[in-house]
């Protein structure tokens, strides 16, 4: 047993995911309190370079005290079954104070099952930690925060973005890699058949200057036209949050959020979007967020620069005609 904080590095097709740096920053905070070190756990096949070399995007390394590297052909791409078996062996052997996963498509496939398998406690959706070992989690679509002592002996944690900046999990020093032997990952019940590239769609919302984005508050497909007319007047395009895409009201290429695009327009105009964490993480790079929502408690108002509680059905048509008039004059 030790007081180290293990961070399971997420990578996809040869690139370290941003959440990995956020997790390292959170892990550093915990390690301060527990007096342990921060170790990156990297699983892959001939993937040492992901830790040994700096990130091509930032030129920086993972900010860690050491890297534990597990190499196996079955680990070359993420699959839940093989990753889980490899990690179960490592966690049971080392018994670190905590293991941090992303609250992502990869991390959530691993943490809960390991909690049952290894009989270890878990905390999900943590956004930050304090040096005295407390966690803060986001629930109810970002409307409620929950706080508590990190459970022991080994806490399995999933982390959401928002509490730390990626730069806090990076530094200029190349870390030391230690290879960890794996006995077996067989039988593997989940295998990767292949990747399907994202639908390109007619526009790339990640490159647009003005996005008029619609959420559940738009109520039905017939109302999408309101947003389209406003977007047209502003020289932008319409995008949407998850519920709108799942209803089939807009194509998948227009999805803003965790599984969709991260966007960075000059103006992000959110119509009837509550601003749940899965959506919020994808729009924080926008220059100016303007939110129109009748719910004063909607979390979108905490990240928007301007907001109004005016009902979008009373406002949008009036706004469109004023925008048109302003352009005409």
């Amino acid at each position, binding site marked *: 047993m030790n007081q180290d904080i293990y961070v399971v590095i997420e990578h*996809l097709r040869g690139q370290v995911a941003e959440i990995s740096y956020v997790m390292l920053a959170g892990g550093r905070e915990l390690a301060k309190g527990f007096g342990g070190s921060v170790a990156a756990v990297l699983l892959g096949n001939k993937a040492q370079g992901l830790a040994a070399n700096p990130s091509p995007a930032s030129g920086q390394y993972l900010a860690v005290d050491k890297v534990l590297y597990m190499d196996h052909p079955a680990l070359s791409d*993420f699959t839940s079954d093989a990753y889980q078996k490899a990690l179960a062996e490592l966690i049971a052997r080392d018994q670190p104070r905590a293991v941090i996963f992303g609250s992502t*498509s990869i991390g*959530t*496939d691993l943490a*809960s*099952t390991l*909690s*049952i398998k290894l009989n270890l406690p*878990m*905390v*999900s959706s943590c956004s930050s930690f304090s040096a005295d070992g407390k966690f803060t*989690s*986001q*629930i*109810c*679509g970002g*409307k*409620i*925060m*929950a706080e*508590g*002592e*990190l*459970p022991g002996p080994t806490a399995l944690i999933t982390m959401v973005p928002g509490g730390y900046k990626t730069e806090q999990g990076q530094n200029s020093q190349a870390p030391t890699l230690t290879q960890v032997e794996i006995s077996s990952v067989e039988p593997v*019940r*989940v*295998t*990767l*058949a*292949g990747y*399907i590239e994202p639908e390109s769609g007619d526009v790339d919302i990640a490159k647009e*200057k*003005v996005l008029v984005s619609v959420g559940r508050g738009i109520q039905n497909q017939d109302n999408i036209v309101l947003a389209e007319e406003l977007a047209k007047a*502003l020289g*932008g395009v319409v995008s949407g949050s998850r*519920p709108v895409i*799942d*209803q089939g009201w807009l194509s*998948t290429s227009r999805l803003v959020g*965790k599984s*969709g695009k991260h966007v960075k327009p*000059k103006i992000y105009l959110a119509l009837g979007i*509550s601003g749940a964490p899965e959506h919020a993480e994808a729009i924080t790079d926008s220059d100016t*967020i*303007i939110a129109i929502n009748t719910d004063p*408690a909607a*979390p979108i108002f*905490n990240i*928007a*620069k*301007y*907001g*109004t509680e*005016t009902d979008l059905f009373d*406002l949008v048509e009036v*706004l469109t005609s*004023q925008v048109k008039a*302003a*352009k005409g004059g």
Partner: protein
Amino acid sequence: MNIIILVKLVPDLVEELAIDSSGNKLDTAWLRMIINEFDDHAIEQGILLKERHGAVVTVVAPDLEGVDDVLFTAAAKGADKLIKIKGDFSGANNHAMARAFSAIVKELQPDLVLTGVQANNDLDGSLGPLMAGCLEMPYVGYISGVTLGDGKLKTRKEYPGGLIAEMDVSLPAVLGIQAAEQPPRYVAVSKVRQMMKTSTIEERTAPGLDMAGGPTISRMFQPEAAQHATMITGNPEEVATKLVTIFKELGVL
């Protein structure tokens, strides 16, 4: 083919949320509980598989207020069997629920277990992968498409940026559904009422709730934002005028 769908009831976020006097949990007095929206997608995906390949679809839910409506609605959509698990689930965490569900699900000998990928009140992981741990089955989450053939499942798993991984999964398995292949179907209230008369909800008793594995919450609070939007007020004309001024300042007009 035996498909089991697990359903959770969660706080309706449209309603105002409050913390109770203990300071460490939601005030349930005014809380409206509704079906977890991702579980609704899991039901849809299960019914789609039944329509394509033939299957017996069983929906399992904990005994919380409103659960009968949720179960009868599932029946109206095409579920064959409804099971309500008795027990005091009001403060139960996902670990307790997974253990309670898995004891009963095991007896049903499922080929496939579907549930929503997450729920808005998850604090100790999510139900699907916890169940997979209890049932010793493989788990894949963030699923937005399922194809069946030769005793194998082909699933579409979502990654950031719209990338999809096609994962092959051997049965029996647990899947965490992000979105069904089509929006959850609508059923008329009259059809749900009819189900209340013609279908039955089987009641089973959970072997006792074991909360071990979840965290202890010392405090719950509504986030005090470091920043809050500058609010624009007035009638729609006035609000629009102010927004146009902002658009001009930002150089888009």
